[in-house]
């Protein structure tokens, strides 16, 4: 009887050990899989969310590509004023700024509608996937693949995308010291074949 009791206890412990090891194995596998999956957190840019958090209006200066410019100096970008929700949260402000940039209001340049759409700095189907602000002042801007595909070639075009986002964030959000770009949640060597985005932009 006593021997039987010990055997029963041993069996229970064995089953528990198997259960724990199986649980740890599965949870670790799921953790690894979760890392690989796309991060699809909310941007909190819905009007009702912003209105709820809003304490007023905030005027921001967007830096957009100046038509005809080729150099990377002051003339490369021109400013446009927009009004966004004041929330006191630098991340929400930064996200609103990038969203405003992406909703580019393209001036007519004597081109047909189709050409005008193709010559937008940011294509209409592109979107901001995520924007984080790290403690050291680095804004991590995760762009969708459509934005990269909308860059139809040329260093000037790539610089227009990079510099308009970088400058708009730095000039309007004091907490942003530098901007680091991701595409579809991943680090890339270049944005669209020319300009390296392996390091942040100041």
């Amino acid at each position, binding site marked *: 009887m006593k021997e039987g009791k010990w055997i029963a206890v041993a069996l229970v412990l*064995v089953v528990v050990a198997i259960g724990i090891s199986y649980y740890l194995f599965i949870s670790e596998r799921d953790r690894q899989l979760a890392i690989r999956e796309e991060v699809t957190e909310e941007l909190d840019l819905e009007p009702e969310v912003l209105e709820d958090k809003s304490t007023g209006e905030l005027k921001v200066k967007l830096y957009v590509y100046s038509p005809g410019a080729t150099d990377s100096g002051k003339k490369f970008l021109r400013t446009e004023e927009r009004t966004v929700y004041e929330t006191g949260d630098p991340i929400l402000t930064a996200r609103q700024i990038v969203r405003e940039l992406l909703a580019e209001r393209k001036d007519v*340049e004597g081109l047909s509608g189709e050409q005008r759409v193709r010559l937008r700095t940011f294509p209409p189907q592109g979107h901001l996937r995520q924007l984080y602000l790290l403690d050291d002042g680095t804004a991590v801007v995760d762009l969708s693949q459509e934005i990269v595909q909308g860059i139809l*070639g040329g*260093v000037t075009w790539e610089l227009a995308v990079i510099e308009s986002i970088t400058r708009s964030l730095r000039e309007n959000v004091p907490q942003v010291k530098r901007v680091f770009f991701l595409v579809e949640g991943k680090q890339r*060597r270049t944005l669209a074949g020319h300009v*390296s985005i392996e390091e942040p932009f100041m």
Partner: protein
Amino acid sequence: MFRLRFEILLNFWLTLLFVAWTSSLIAQDLTLRVGQESHRVESATRDGKTYFRLRDIAAVFELSTNETSSQIDVFGPRGTLALMDDRPLVRIGDQYILLTGPVWRRGKGNWYVPADFLEKVLPGILNTRLTKESDGTYRVQGVGRNRVRVEFLKYPDHLSVVFRSSRAGVTAVQEFRDYVEVRYGEYLVNPDSIADPPDRELITSVKFVPEEAFGTFRVGKGEKFYSFRESRLSDPPRLVLDVFPRPGTERSSPGSGATVDLPATSRPSTSREPPDEDPGQQPRIPVIVIDPGHGGEDYGVDVYQDVLEKGLALVLARKIEQRLVASGEGVRLTRFRDVDLAAEQRSAAGNFHRAKVFVSVHVGGAPSAQTSGAVVYVYDPPPAEFKVSRAAPGEGGGEGDDHAELVRWNEGQIGYLNGSRRLANLMQTELNKLFGIQNSVVEARLAVLAPVMAPAVLVETGFLTNSEDLELLGRDEFQETLAYTIARVIGKFLESR
């Protein structure tokens, strides 16, 4: 008695539990299946990347090695590869392959290679084929035979070389100075017969080189050779090279890969040095390296689909090459045909040939139809790179004639920034005169220029998004003037050094 058994059982399962937990945290080992046998290759993780132990791989394929403190040579049945500690470049013969991470020497005889070594590098020295079965498992197979017969077909205006094969398998057709190379993969080539060329002024010979890839044919260029066009046909699988003679005696050719017609006087690769020299045996003569941007699936600017940047860049690069060769310079193009190259391959070509000047030729595109004229770009390193750079000659950049010291891959250009800026200013000034516009040199973090150890610029020769530039760039005489201007600036820059 039973207490003892219980303790043994408990210990056994706790150990099992620990092993299962820790094994799920470390990198997955590699399994190589050969027939019914499975061979395990130990893995390790470094900087978030998976590495495999070279010794285990060598044992499976029975490869011998020869190791020094910083280099290990691996001898395979079809070639030798050289790996250097903490360097991502692997040399096979005269080719260099870039891995996603540096080779890792953990100790004597204990080398580790990044995971992409298996597919990128290893097949180059093996007679066997690696097929991926699943993540972390590959099957090693002996390759089948591909019987290839070479025939000639004569036409009034050209000669066709037909490679009839029992299986498809042509992996590359590449043009060199003296020959066109047809390279096979997948299956070992067994040449059935090779006919004699009917016109040796056009094609001197067709030679089979068994040791290159899985078998390679070299089509020798004759005096009348001008250009060729390749076609890959099926059922039965065959590759056809239509070889065209130099214009003047016969009808002009349709070019060889570019989307825009080539000029009548253009000749592909020309250089002072033979293209197949052994880099380890002969000192290289510095040359001017011209890099035609984009190519293959990478169209470059394609706002107006009938004119693609990749084709125009190749045409302009060839015209620049022709001008420079006429003035006695040695020139290398990074590509001769419509193929896509990674930025690393382009800059590696510049360093491999010890470029004295590197010019990447592009055509611009901007999100505005008003943007026009040529723009010359030089490399603008990120601020942090200035701090970590220790080997670049001259803080902030010099003319950089010293190749002796090693520099980090992405910092090669830093020592040459002064030279690059001077070349860029000269070029921008001359191109502004040509376009009648005042554009400035732009400094940008361009990936293709970062590693180049020579004065290097990227030039966008007008904007395809601007209608006037588009019209100009489509005209042959303007292309010639552009090429002349750029070649003259390069010559002037070299004279002034």
